[in-house]
């Protein structure tokens, strides 16, 4: 088990810089998820930790030891790949033991490790089969098993569940959580799926375009996003953004007028310096933070386009007078019949024109 420290890590491909100075401190035994849209640099960062990509600048330390120039095999890591990367011409057992056999690990120890991994993952029945005779979930288990036999200090997962169907993905997610509890090993996990990030992580690193947007515990990111990107990325359905304009201040704080609805104003307490009146802002409201008319401090008139009934809850897809799309979450019992309704805003976030949170 070990810590993983990234200090101002940079990655360049030729003249293109794809990771612009990443600083991350992964604690011993922690489960950290790198999340972001595709192309944000999260996989590149993981591959740099693994040693599969050169580090163009900065330092990476595992267990306090600088590993910039250490071979992948000597970094104490094990990696699970998106495509599983199982050797198609070997049985499950051979797949698990291949690395150890090739590096001259004593046979008895190899056997012990393979046995343990197969027990942890409950794949004893499959040991003689070839990868193509396995289901997607079983292949995934074998891929994880191959990481376990290395008895690494750090597990690296590169989008391990994205090739599985939705149901299996949920099941394997739980499985990986259980594994983390059982082994207690540091794990770094890359995904583009914010649900995976929210459910698995001790801490989440949100990335975009090679920058780290925010690092924090799942609920902290959810409740207290630093910027519009994180606010929009974390949570499902996404946070709604309604354009507005600062019109002044009152006792509650800054007062925002929503575009196209002069009468609808939101007051927000700010601790920092408030932008001057007239500047444009985005008001972010999560679907579940809309209430019935009169419940919050602001009422907003929206036109409903589509209603989705999921059973316990329903989602109302609606549009404001200004044309901003909003999604409103309601209890199934509380879905109005009208095509135009008034909703209140119970809680909201303000973002400035650069997308930074105003607080």
């Amino acid at each position, binding site marked *: 088990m070990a810590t993983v420290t990234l200090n101002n890590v940079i990655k360049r491909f030729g003249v293109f810089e794809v990771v612009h100075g990443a600083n991350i401190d992964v604690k011993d035994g922690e489960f950290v998820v790198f999340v972001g849209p595709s192309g944000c640099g999260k996989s590149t960062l993981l*591959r740099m930790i*693994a*040693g*599969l990509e050169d580090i163009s600048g900065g330092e990476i330390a595992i267990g306090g030891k600088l590993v910039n120039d250490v*071979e*992948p*095999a*000597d970094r104490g*890591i*094990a*990696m699970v*790949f*998106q*495509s*599983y*990367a199982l*050797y*198609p*011409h070997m049985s499950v057992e051979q797949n698990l033991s*291949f*690395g*150890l056999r*090739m*590096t001259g690990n004593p046979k008895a120890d190899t056997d012990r490790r393979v046995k343990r991994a197969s027990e942890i993952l409950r794949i004893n029945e499959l040991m003689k089969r070839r990868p193509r005779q396995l289901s997607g979930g079983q292949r995934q288990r074998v891929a994880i098993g*191959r990481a376990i036999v*290395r008895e690494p200090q750090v597990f690296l997962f590169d989008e391990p569940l994205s090739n599985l169907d939705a149901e299996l993905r949920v099941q394997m997610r739980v499985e990986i959580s259980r594994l983390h509890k059982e082994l207690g090993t540091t794990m770094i996990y890359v995904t583009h799926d914010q649900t995976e990030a929210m459910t698995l992580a001790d801490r989440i690193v949100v990335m975009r375009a090679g920058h780290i947007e925010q690092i924090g515990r799942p609920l902290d990111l959810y409740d207290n996003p630093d910027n519009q990107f994180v606010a929009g990325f974390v949570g499902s359905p996404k946070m709604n953004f309604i354009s507005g304009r600062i019109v002044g201040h009152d006792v509650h704080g800054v007062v925002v007028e929503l575009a196209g609805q002069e009468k609808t104003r939101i007051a927000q307490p700010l601790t920092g310096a408030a932008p001057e009146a007239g500047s444009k802002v985005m008001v972010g409201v999560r679907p579940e933070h809309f209430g019935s008319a009169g419940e919050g401090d602001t009422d907003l008139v929206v036109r409903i386009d589509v209603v989705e009934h999921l059973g316990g809850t329903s989602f109302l897809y609606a549009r404001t007078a200004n044309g901003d799309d909003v999604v409103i979450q309601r209890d199934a019992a509380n879905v109005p019949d009208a095509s135009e309704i008034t909703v209140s805003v119970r809680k909201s976030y303000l973002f400035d024109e650069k997308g930074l949170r105003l607080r």
Partner: protein
Amino acid sequence: MSSLSSARLGRSIALHLFLTPLALIWLFPLWMMVVFSTMPDNGIFSPGIELLPHGNFMDNFNNLQRDTDFVGAIGISVSVAVTYTFLSVLLTSMAGWALARYRFVGKGVVVAIILGTITLPYAVVLIPQFIMVARDFKLANTWVALIVPPLFNSLGVLFMRQSFSMMPDDLFDAARVEGVKEWRIFLFVALPLARPMLAALAIILFLASWNNYLWPLLINSQPGSMTAPVALGTLIGLTKVSWGGIMAGAVMLTVPMLVVFVLLQRHFIAGIAAGAIK
């Protein structure tokens, strides 16, 4: 619906009516090779039209063996082709692996050279190659002379490069993370996965070596060191020679390859087609 299918039937008949004679014409020389090889010499050079095999193959073969040591030459051809195929598959797949899987300084130059030599006529290197091997290395009439110079093979490298680069990166990265050395990854992961491609390459290389004529003709011209095609070629044009025997030799050179072709047609075609299809 019925007019549509009758149009299809008409097209199908036209297709077969055109293709069948063409196919027969194409098979004709091979068929005649077999027919000639079973006819006595006075039968070959007689006025009648003979289109069916006779029973004279063994006599012809004995005549051939009298004219030249064809069995010995076949032995050399087989040994050379087997050794060449093994070495060439190894060398070209190693080179193809490096080009497919590593970033290194000078890669562009190496690829350009390989592409360039495809269109360079072999004639350009033939004379100095001959001078070097025969005069400087004094290797004329040896197996080494037959095997080593043709080991440079551009299409084979490009084929293996293509094969290896189509394999998923993760597979090799997974082994790398586990600390497996590069040559072991090549040997135990890459090569086993490339088995169908290696088979295709091996067949093509074996055939090339088996049928190679100009270089063996130049470099191994002593009786006792000739390959089978060269030994057979020396008889063509001689006056007192058994043509039935030459045909028996031609059959012995050709029929085994035809059998291999039929058995491994898929690999064969893959190997030939790979030259052009990226």
